[in-house]
Structures are given as structure tokens and as C-alpha cells.
């Protein structure tokens, strides 16, 4: 079992500090990413999806810290505790970009405007491989070709502002894939792009996954994307994973009231205009004044006094776990 894993995160707590207040952005998060599989992480804005990604990459802002828990990268050289590495130390830098790579939400701002795309892709190769300058140039063109960028030789010399949005994201993926990473973290890679471009990017990611056996952590707030691409799903709410399991587990047999509410709030194409879309009542709480117990309780239709206490994670099946006091009763009534 452990051999299939690319990365395990155990009880991770990452806190942000501002003006002597503390935002418990991640409050005990555990999950695994399997080799060659896609883990989809869904949740509303501010639920801690991106913080999880930044914690893994050790790219957290200065005033934040991993307080507890562990991030273990199962490399070929043995397990590496990422959370124990120095943030910008040599070891962490050699993992970043080479073994764990990341693509970002907005390709418009994620590329440096004053350097050519080829140069920026080549930079990763320069620091992680022994290739000569000429070989790097060839590899860059190879990568751009693989990403389906036309006339890659000329494109490599161009600057990000000469690229369209979709092409920039493909260039970002080329950069991330340049050193054949074991894990690719994609933080909402298509949110800033046209829907038509989305499909292209996802096809590309799927191809990379099957060809290079790359494990992917796909962060999104789009359930449709999850259904399409993910093998495993983790649903996050206010710094906790409230439900996790395989795609079938979570999308077909949702246990947590939040997951259900989330699924109910998506309009379905083809059902016409009169479909019953349920919005989730209330708003996400202020991260500095969180509810005492279950974070979702104030917005939950099934909340009782018992929910004043933080629920623990319970296994529904071997692959499916949920964080709710009442999931059994609710599930029976449904």
C-alpha cells in the first residue's frame, strides 16, 4: 500500500499570524496522493485548498507556519519529511521544481514579463539537470511541442505577453513538467481560462499523468472537473477535510451535509431552467472567530447540540471517511 503513495499528509496544521491574531488556516488535514492518480481537492474560496498546496511546496508567506503534523514525500531515495526541511534550504529547493512541481491559477501573472518563455522554462532545467545550454534549448522546444504549442522554436523566444491565456498555462505546465516531477500540484489551473481552453488543459494533464505516472493534486472549486479528472476526492471546509474518498464514494454516496449541499448547489446542464438549485445558507465564518465545534454547524440543516464539539474523522468504508457526528442518521433518512 505504502509503495503506491507519492505523498502523505498527516494532521497538518498551518496557522497564519496577522496583528497578533491567528488564523488556523489548516486545522488538522490528512490525505494521501497516490502515484499516477489524481487527487481532487474541492471547497469554497478560503477553505485552505491553496494553503495546503503552499504548505507542501513550503511556499507559505512569511507570517505563517506549519505548527503540527507531517508532510511526507515518498521519494525513490526514501521518505522525506518536507515539513522538517528548511524553507529555502538546498534540499527543499532541489525537491521544488524537480520532484514536486506546481502550476498556478493565473498564468497571466505567474510568468515573468521580461523574460522569454523559453528562458523561463530553461531555468528549471538549468538548476535541476546537467544539460548544456544547447541541450536545454532543445528540451524546451521538445516540451513546448508536447504541450501542443505551434511553431515552438519561435514561440520559445517570445515573451509571455505574446502568448494567449491558454498558451501561457500550457507554457506553465511545460515549465512544471520540464524535470519530470513525481507530483504535480495544480492550483485551480483553469479558473482564469476560457471554458473551451479548460478541456485542452485537462486533456494535457491526463496525458501527462498516464505517460509519466505523475501524481496530480488538482485544486478546484468545480465539481464537474472533479468528476471528470479525479480518482480521489477531498472536500475541504474551513481548514478541515470534511469528507474524502474515491470519486465514486464522494460524488455518488456523499455523507457529509456540506458535500451534499455542495452537490445540490450545482446546476445541471440539460435539466432546463426550472431546476431546483439549492444555495447553501449563510456565509463562511470569519476565520478569526470560528465556530467552536463543527465548522459547518452554523450553516448545516442537521446541526444539533452535539455539533458544538469538533467531530473526529470516521471511516465509512476503507476508502471513504467523513467528519460529522450525525452522518449515519442523516444518511438513513435520505
Amino acid at each position, binding site marked *: 500500500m505504502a509503495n503506491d503513495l507519492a505523498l502523505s499528509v498527516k494532521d497538518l496544521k498551518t496557522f497564519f499570524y496577522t496583528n497578533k491574531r491567528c488564523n488556523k488556516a489548516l486545522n488538522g488535514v490528512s490525505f494521501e496522493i497516490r502515484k499516477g492518480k489524481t487527487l481532487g481537492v474541492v471547497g469554497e474560496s478560503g477553505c485552505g485548498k491553496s494553503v495546503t498546496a503552499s504548505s507542501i511546496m513550503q*511556499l507559505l508567506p512569511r507570517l505563517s507556519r506549519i505548527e503540527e503534523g507531517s508532510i511526507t514525500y515518498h521519494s525513490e531515495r526514501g521518505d522525506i519529511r518536507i515539513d522538517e526541511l528548511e524553507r529555502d534550504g538546498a534540499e527543499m*529547493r532541489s525537491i521544488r*521544481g524537480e520532484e514536486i512541481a506546481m502550476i498556478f491559477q493565473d498564468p497571466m*501573472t505567474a510568468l515573468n514579463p521580461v523574460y522569454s518563455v523559453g528562458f523561463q522554462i530553461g*531555468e528549471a532545467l538549468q538548476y535541476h539537470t546537467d544539460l548544456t545550454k544547447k541541450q536545454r534549448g532543445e528540451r524546451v522546444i521538445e516540451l513546448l511541442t508536447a504541450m501542443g504549442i505551434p511553431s515552438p522554436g519561435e514561440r520559445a523566444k517570445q515573451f509571455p*505577453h505574446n502568448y494567449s491565456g491558454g498558451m501561457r498555462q500550457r507554457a506553465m505546465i511545460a515549465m512544471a513538467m520540464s524535470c519530470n516531477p513525481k507530483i504535480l500540484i495544480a492550483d485551480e489551473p483553469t479558473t482564469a481560462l476560457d471554458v473551451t481552453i479548460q478541456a485542452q488543459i485537462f486533456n494535457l494533464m491526463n496525458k501527462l499523468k498516464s505517460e509519466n505516472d505523475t501524481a496530480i493534486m488538482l485544486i478546484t472549486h468545480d465539481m464537474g472537473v472533479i468528476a471528470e479528472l479525479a480518482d480521489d476526492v477531498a472536500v475541504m471546509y474551513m481548514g478541515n477535510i470534511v469528507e474524502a474518498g474515491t470519486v465514486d464514494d464522494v460524488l455518488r454516496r456523499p455523507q457529509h451535509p456540506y458535500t451534499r449541499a455542495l452537490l445540490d448547489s450545482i446546476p445541471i446542464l440539460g435539466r432546463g431552467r426550472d431546476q431546483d438549485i439549492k444555495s447553501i445558507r449563510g456565509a463562511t465564518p470569519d476565520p478569526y472567530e470560528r465556530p467552536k465545534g463543527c465548522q459547518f454547524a452554523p450553516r448545516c440543516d442537521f446541526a444539533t447540540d452535539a455539533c458544538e464539539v469538533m467531530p473526529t474523522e470516521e471511516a465509512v468504508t476503507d476508502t471513504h471517511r467523513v467528519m460529522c457526528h450525525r452522518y449515519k442518521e442523516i444518511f438513513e433518512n435520505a
Partner: protein
Amino acid sequence: MLTFILRRILITIPMLLIISFLVYLGLELTPGDAVSHMISPDLTNTVTEEQMAAMRESLGLDKSFIERYWSWLTHIVQGDFGHSLSGGVAISTIVLDRLPATLELSIFALVFSTIIGCVLGLLSALKRGSATDSALTVVGMLGVSIPEFFFGLVAILIFALNLGWLPVGGRLLPSYDSYWDHFPNIILPGLVLSLMMTAGVMRYARSAMLDSLSREFIRTARAKGLPQWRIILYHAFRVALTPVVVLIGFRLPTLIGGSVIIEAVFQWPGIGLEFIGAVRGSDYPLVMSIALLSVLAVLLASLIVDVLTAMIDPRVRLG
């Protein structure tokens, strides 16, 4: 790129024409003319109106304003700036005589302030919020806000008069054998002038650096696993360079026009000092020529800034 530069030069020409016209118009509006300056005040009573008119005619002053402007302009284009009213020396000779001193001082200050300003600004941005940053911020604000002449006078008082380390002012003295003998003379005016410039460059470099460090491509660079120095110098500083280059570029005119105040305070025999003398002595042809030269320098500097910006930032459209 070449067509871009050519086009920029072509735009510069009509601007120069308009400004030269305004400068000439300014002279026209001042009271008195060349003749009234040529006649010594003691003789005003003895010279008759007819004699004055004859002089005007011989100098071509009786022609229309446009005709005179045209003749002035055509001479200038041929490099003939006319003669100074006091002494009758050719203006081009005066300017060429004064230019080395001004260039020497300005290049010293420009190079010094650019290097030190960028380094300190970078340091300040990287150590944001630290004691170093606060200290540099205070020094920078003082540097920007204290007037040059005050700073210059205080420097003379302390280093020249009280401590006696450096000469009070002046440049080449008769007793100097070699060019390098006058080096102590340049230290005080050079440093005072550069400290003013350094403060500005530092403040600009700091804020541009903070801005570019907070951009998303820095996170991308970190995610690639690049070492810190490369992220700072290659990714952040390169982007921060554009506003700093613009600032430094607009300091370029001091190379020719000189710093009037500093040159006056330190009696540095450059173009700035000459300019003050010309204004005091109502030597209008000289004032006009220096003003026109400064304008030319400003236009050239803005051309250089445009070209440099286009070279540094590929997003600038060459059109």
C-alpha cells in the same frame, strides 16, 4: 528598434523648434535690447537716438521679430551661438570651456548615486521592516527633503572649515601640477550632489523592488526551486529596474546643464555657475544658449530613457 529610434528623433525636432522659438520670444520680451547693453551707463546721455538707430541697423535689430529669429536659428544650426555680451567671447567657446568641469562633477554623482542608490534600495526592500530599513528610510527622506544648498553649506562648514580635510571649493588651481591634484576638490561637491540623487534612487529602487517581490512570478520562480539570489537579482530586480532607469534617465540633463545650486555653493566652474553669472549680468544670448542646451539635454535624455525602457521591458511597444 532602429525605426523606433529614428522616429523618436524625428519627433524631437519639432519640439526643439517650438522650444527655441519660446526661448527667443522670452528674450524679446525682456526690457532693453543688445544695443542698450552695449552702451556704458556713463555714456547714455551723450549717445543720440540717431546713433542708437544706426547701431541697431548695423546689427540687424531693426528687422522684424520673425526675421531675426530665423537668422538666429540658422546660425545655431550651424553651430554659431553668437557672442557673449560681456567680453564678446563666442558662446560656443565659453560652453566648451565650462563643459568638462560640469561633466566631471555630474558623471561622478550620477555613477556614484546609481550604484549606491540601487544597492541600498535593494537592501532596504529585502530587509523590509528591519532597523536597517527604517534607518535608510529616514536618511532617504532627509536626503530628498533637505535643500541642496543647505546640505552643501553644512558639508563645507564641517569638512572644510572645522575639520579642514577638504578644500572649500573651486576646481583647478594654478598650483596644481597634474589633473589628479584637484581630486580632493571634487569630493565634497560630488558627494553632496550624489547624496541628493542617491536618496531618490534608493527610495525608487526600494518601492519598485517591494512591488516586484510581491508579484506572482516570484512565487513561480520559487516553485521552480531557484536559489534566493537568482530570484532576487534575475526575477525581482530586473522587473524593478524599469522605474529606476526612468528616474536616472531624467537626471541625465545635469550632465550638460550642470547643477546650478551645487556649482554655485562650491564655486565649481561649470555651466551652472556660468549660467548664474549670465543671469546676473543680463547676458541674454548666453542665458538663451545655455537654456537651449539644457532643453536639448532633456529631450535627449527622454529619448535615451525611451530606448532603454524598450530594451529592458519587452512589453513596451515600439511604435
